[in-house]
């Protein structure tokens, strides 16, 4: 089950991850993660705390260097074409870091400039993205005045402003109320029709709502990769997302079993130890 789909040429997919490994001292954060994503796929990146989700995302965005393995974004190697790769990705980090003292509009202008959005298109891009993320009413506000929901949306806006090929969102839905969640899903769905979206989450409902593919990592290893239906079918037809998640992230020993087993006898009781967040 451990997906190794990265055998295709790097150009066929917008995001190809090959054998990514990363250690922090003695702690093995990532161990030979491989997967490939096509444009039009919205991938839910799932795993318990400390599984390596953020580490993977930081490597893809160039913030961390992998110990082994590499990734290609839009056909470009992240190790050798860092600058070009960064033009093609949009990234929303976990805690949504923003310049608190700036006006929302000024901030979006700054991002558009530094992202190299052509001068003529800046205004229209900002207006469009502000509409998409429902920020139009707060453009004249200072960022530190914004509520959590607006901050999250501004974080998303800066990630999609330059129409990147690959959008990487690290737990983008925390702190959103149900209405904002729905809007957020709509935006992701719209963008996800043409672009590649990789987003990590704890909230399983998010997966069914927006993702057409699921990647589960656990203790730095990729343990499952497929559509929610495929993964459910591999357990039993009636398995819920929660069952799938529990099954694959039960404990370290389970990984080896999962690889061998074709059928699951009983559902493993979820025993998630709160782990150290490496990143």
């Amino acid at each position, binding site marked *: 089950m451990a997906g190794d789909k990265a055998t295709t040429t790097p150009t066929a997919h917008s995001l190809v991850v090959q054998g990514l490994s990363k250690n922090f001292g003695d702690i093995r954060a990532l161990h030979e993660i491989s997967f490939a994503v096509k444009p039009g796929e919205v991938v839910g990146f799932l795993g318990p705390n400390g599984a390596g989700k953020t580490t993977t995302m930081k490597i893809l965005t160039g913030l961390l260097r992998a110990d082994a393995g590499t990734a290609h974004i839009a056909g470009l190697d992240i190790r050798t074409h860092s*600058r070009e790769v960064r033009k093609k990705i949009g990234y929303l980090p976990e805690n949504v870091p923003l310049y608190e003292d700036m006006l929302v509009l000024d901030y979006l202008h700054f991002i558009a400039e530094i992202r190299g959005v052509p001068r003529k298109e800046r205004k229209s891009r900002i207006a469009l993205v502000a509409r998409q993320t429902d920020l139009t009413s707060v453009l004249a506000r200072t960022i530190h005045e914004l509520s959590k929901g607006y901050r999250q949306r501004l974080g998303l806006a800066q990630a999609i402003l330059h129409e990147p090929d690959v959008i990487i969102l690290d737990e983008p839905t925390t702190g959103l109320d149900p209405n904002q969640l729905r809007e957020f899903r709509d935006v992701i769905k719209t963008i996800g029709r043409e672009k590649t979206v990789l987003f990590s989450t704890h909230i399983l409902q998010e997966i069914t709502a927006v993702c057409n593919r699921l990647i589960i990592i656990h203790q730095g290893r990729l343990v499952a990769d497929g559509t929610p239906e495929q993964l459910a079918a591999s357990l039993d037809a009636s398995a819920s997302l929660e069952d799938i998640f529990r099954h694959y992230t039960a404990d370290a020993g389970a990984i080896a079993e999962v690889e061998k087993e074709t059928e699951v006898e009983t559902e493993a009781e979820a025993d998630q130890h709160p782990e150290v967040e490496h990143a």
Partner: protein
Amino acid sequence: MRNTGIIAKRELGAYFNSVVAYIVVILFLVSTGSLFWLSYFQQLNILSMRPYFDLAPMFLAFFAPAITMGLFSSERRSGTLDLLMTMPVSSFQIVAGKFVASTVLLSVVILMTLPYALTLSLLGELDWGAVLAGYIGLLLLGSAYCAIGVMTSSWTRDQVVAVLLSFFICFFLYLIQQLVGQPSGSTARIVEYLSTSYHFQNLARGVIDLRDIVYYLSLIGVSLTVATVSIGARK
């Protein structure tokens, strides 16, 4: 170059949108202005900017770390630096942009004291050549202190640590000649070469020597290089 400009523009906006720029302008002008005019009235027979050029370097060593301390440390703390690093800008462009912004602010403050010289020139014959050299010296010294401030800010998430380190380096380089007493031979030359005040004194006397300019430019170059490395070394 373009990216450096974008970063510098944002930082300058941040200075002037907050109270930082105004506080620096007011405090610098009040402190140097009052001390300068006090000394002027004590020695009415001398028409020179020298008292100001003797005072200003100490104040620069105080203000430059204050305006640079947050440039990187606050961005590290909030995580905005991480986000910035995922954008198509190089570490050096970020460092250079922040250096330019702080230097522009400090230069504006320094140049706001030009009315002192204009006032003096109304009272009699003022040696404008010496004044010009002195201002060039102050601008170079201020830029070098800003570069040191940018460097220490790039080392830490903590603004207090950043400001203390740059205070220490700026004052150490300024006072190094007094600190080592009366050295001789090569030690004396090394101390002289390292001393920001030694190089500044030449300029304040009205002597524009290429060696002094090279000294300040290399101080800026070294500091910004160290900052670039420490920003990029996070991977």
